[in-house]
């Protein structure tokens, strides 16, 4: 009860649904003519979705005052890492079939892969320091370190945007949501600066 188990267990199951659905489609032969592409797309999309859900925990807390939500953030963030790992493995294994020279060339020469690769690498230290012991050990530096997730999320959207041929609607939607979630943070942070408060006041209250 204290640890929020009643919500954590169904949430865990829900977070596994995208993988379950992918596995089921694979098992029943419903992944279409190019299954590897579908697996790559799906795991990539869910990585972005989980990054955005994770980033919405703090704004939601502030908005609703439901502070216990913070207890779910670690699981959501780890699921972002989980789907990113699947996405990365799909690329290395199914798409490139461990052709290391080809992969190295991709990472160096293809900006969208460079960005995607870097974003994934940046997630690793975050996942590694997600244990309670690490949070305690790192103290204030933990929070600084975990701000890297902003970089990863921006990198993820750019990665998507740069791989699309002409129809940029979907990556733009992810970009807009991310921009909104990041803007929430800037506003609340700037709201604590006295000079900013004053400026807002001046803007809102017409001077005589």
């Amino acid at each position, binding site marked *: 009860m204290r640890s929020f188990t009643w919500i954590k267990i169904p949430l865990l199951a829900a977070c596994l649904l995208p993988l379950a659905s992918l596995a089921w489609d*694979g098992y029943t032969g419903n992944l279409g003519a190019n299954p590897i592409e579908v697996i790559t797309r799906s795991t990539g999309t869910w990585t972005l979705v989980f990054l955005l859900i994770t980033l919405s925990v703090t704004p939601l807390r502030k908005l609703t005052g439901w502070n216990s939500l913070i207890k779910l953030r670690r699981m959501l963030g780890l699921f972002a890492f989980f789907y990113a790992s699947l996405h990365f493995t799909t690329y290395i294994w199914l798409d490139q079939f461990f052709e290391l020279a080809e992969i190295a060339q991709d990472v160096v020469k293809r900006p969208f892969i460079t960005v995607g690769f870097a974003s994934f690498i940046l997630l690793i230290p975050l996942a590694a320091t997600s244990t309670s012991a690490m949070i305690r050990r790192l103290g204030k530096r933990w929070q600084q370190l975990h701000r890297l997730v902003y970089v990863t999320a921006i990198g993820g959207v750019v990665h998507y945007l740069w791989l699309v041929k002409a129809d940029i609607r979907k990556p733009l939607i992810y970009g807009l949501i991310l921009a909104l979630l990041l803007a929430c943070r800037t506003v609340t942070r700037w709201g604590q600066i006295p000079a900013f408060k004053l400026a807002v006041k001046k803007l809102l209250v017409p001077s005589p």
Partner: protein
Amino acid sequence: MLIRKSNDIKSSEITPREIYLSRRNFFLSAAVAAAGLIVPPFPFSQEAHAGTKLAGVRKSSLSTDEKPNSFKEITTYNNFYEFGTDKDSPAEQAKRLVTRPWTVSVEGEIRRPKVYDIDELIKLSPLEERIYRLRCVEGWSMVIPWVGFPLYALISRVEPTSKAKYVEFTTLLDPKQMPGQRRGVLDWPYVEGLRIDEAMHPLAILAVGLYGEVLPNQNGAPIRLVVPWKYGFKSVKSIVRIRFVERQPSTAWMKAAPHEYGFYSNVNPEVDHPRWSQARERRIGEFTKRKTFLFNGYREQVASLYQGMDFKKYF
């Protein structure tokens, strides 16, 4: 676990290709046998819907002997942005396309301009089966048994003038039937082009069928271009206008991203797309990638068109 599954999925094995082939052979021999007894076979019945058998289709020595992809693969995995940008949307959305009546206006620098009715156009030249490789600019490929006739049969009939240096092809513009055109993903209508000597090449065909049957809408019905040595997007679908021009046409993809898609767009493993490699390709239905070949393996036939050309400049 995922790996084992995707390895298992070879829809080309699920879909009984042999049945298609034997059925087609049966119809072919039946048609040949009947030819002496009844009137010459009419390419199209009045009901020219996808799935209708095409009669009198000849084999061609220009076909590859590679194993064709299944009918299902060819008709459910399509790039046809007029019907949406997802691979599976054309199969669903193209159902509403009405392909009869249909006219193709042949115009420009020619002595005999004419608005052809589609059924008249199809009878210009005997239909042939052409089994071609198709390489998409996105890095996948298929082997497709088209039915069509050489583009030169039309070109020689309309008598191009000396000013006809290029041929421009235009797809139908009709956002009511083509929901993808309601969004400005590309500068509609879709326009493609060939140099006149490329257009005259025997490998370039106008396709009206697939697997011996009337072309399904999602594959570009009622008539489309197929240029097998170029990336797939050059093979424009659902054509309503063929215009002979003096200056190089500006194509839809050149307008969308001029540094990424050139006028020539010949398949070339050495010239990468600015954002991805073109060295290898995934043949739909296969697990590992294949090497991509210059001119999609049609080098022997088409290299003479491009002698001395810098492919990095004219990509």
